[in-house]
């Protein structure tokens, strides 16, 4: 299974990628929404996208809207991973088409739980 991790923070990209790789995902990264769309346009279509909200060039909400507007990318699961945690913000993200929402700070277990809910957790977890 494939995952695209989008965050303007390299540290956060490393943390999320590392957790997903340990769960068996093949991971690609992007630094903002526009770069993320470029990866998808290039034909690398993941099963899961984790995306931050506040990023330069194109923010997470714009990215989610752009992805959901494209029928070719219907099967992708989009999970926002962000420090934006106002109730109204979460509602906006879900309304724009995000499937799930992880509030920063989060633990690896939290990410794992959300993936389990989405049915994206591989049965066997590599050590």
């Amino acid at each position, binding site marked *: 299974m494939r995952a695209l991790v989008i965050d303007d923070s390299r540290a956060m990209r490393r943390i999320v990628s590392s957790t997903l790789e*340990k769960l068996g995902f093949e991971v690609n990264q992007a630094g903002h929404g526009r770069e993320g769309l470029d990866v998808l346009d290039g034909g690398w279509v993941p099963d899961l996208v984790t995306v931050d909200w506040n990023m330069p060039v194109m923010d997470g909400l714009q990215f989610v809207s752009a992805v959901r507007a494209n029928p070719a990318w219907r099967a992708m699961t989009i999970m926002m991973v962000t420090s934006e*945690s*106002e*109730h109204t913000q*979460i*509602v906006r*993200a*879900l309304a724009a088409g*995000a499937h*799930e*929402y*992880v*509030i920063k*700070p*989060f*633990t690896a*277990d*939290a990410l*794992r*739980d*959300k993936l*389990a*809910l989405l049915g994206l*957790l591989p*049965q*066997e*977890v*590599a*050590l």
Partner: protein
Amino acid sequence: MTLTATSFDWVRALVHKESAIVLQPGKEYLVEARLLPIARQVGIPDVSEYVESVRSRPSADSTRRIVEALTTNETSWFRDGDPFTAFTSTVLPSLLAARGPNERLQIWSAACSSGQEPYTIAMLLEDALPNAASRVSITATDLSREMVERTKAGRFSQLEVNRGLPAPMLVRHFTRAGTEWEVAPTLRRMVTARECNLAAPLPPMGPFDVVYLRNVLIYFDLPTKRSILSRVRALMRPDGWLFLGAAETTLGVDDSWERVVIGRSSAYRPLKGA
């Protein structure tokens, strides 16, 4: 004495095999902290010694106890998923058909901890039934007064709501209170929390249509398991449903239950005439 590498590796392999959870190197301190209370409970003051005693003569119970202690970080919502799916897909419709329109369904969350389980059930009911609060009541009990108070308050930290609670349910059923998230008043009204010691005679409660007794029996010896199950059964409707933890079973403990497979989980129902 600190955990030896051999002991740690064995525990890692066990946890991975039983739960697919990965214990990363460097987490020895976590294993020690989590297993020390259990080691003491069985009279072994040293974690390495305790692990070695289980490793040399492993049993289903002793290994499960170790796995449970290490995989219960914060209590998560929709724990193990399937028992809650089973509830909405099969148990609830079956109960609604079997009961009269004015009969209140009674549900018992018998080891409610900080409240995630009873409120998970409340959310499912709220989403499934109009006027859920008038159709169902949920009794939540725990041995610990602190946990009962927490359940009554219905407030959870950001870290707690991140654990397995679907975001759409978070926004539907919670409001922010400072840095915490508080369960909606309608859901809190559905849940009555009280202290209860399962290993002692139970207060008059129920009769319950559904009981959640999850990941609690593993902490007790066989005779106590039996008496708990029998006391629970006495508080249940004859056509009620019992949910145990994902790795638990009544098999070998109490043969007065019928196991029913629902999707990827199981429920137990009192055997007629048993």
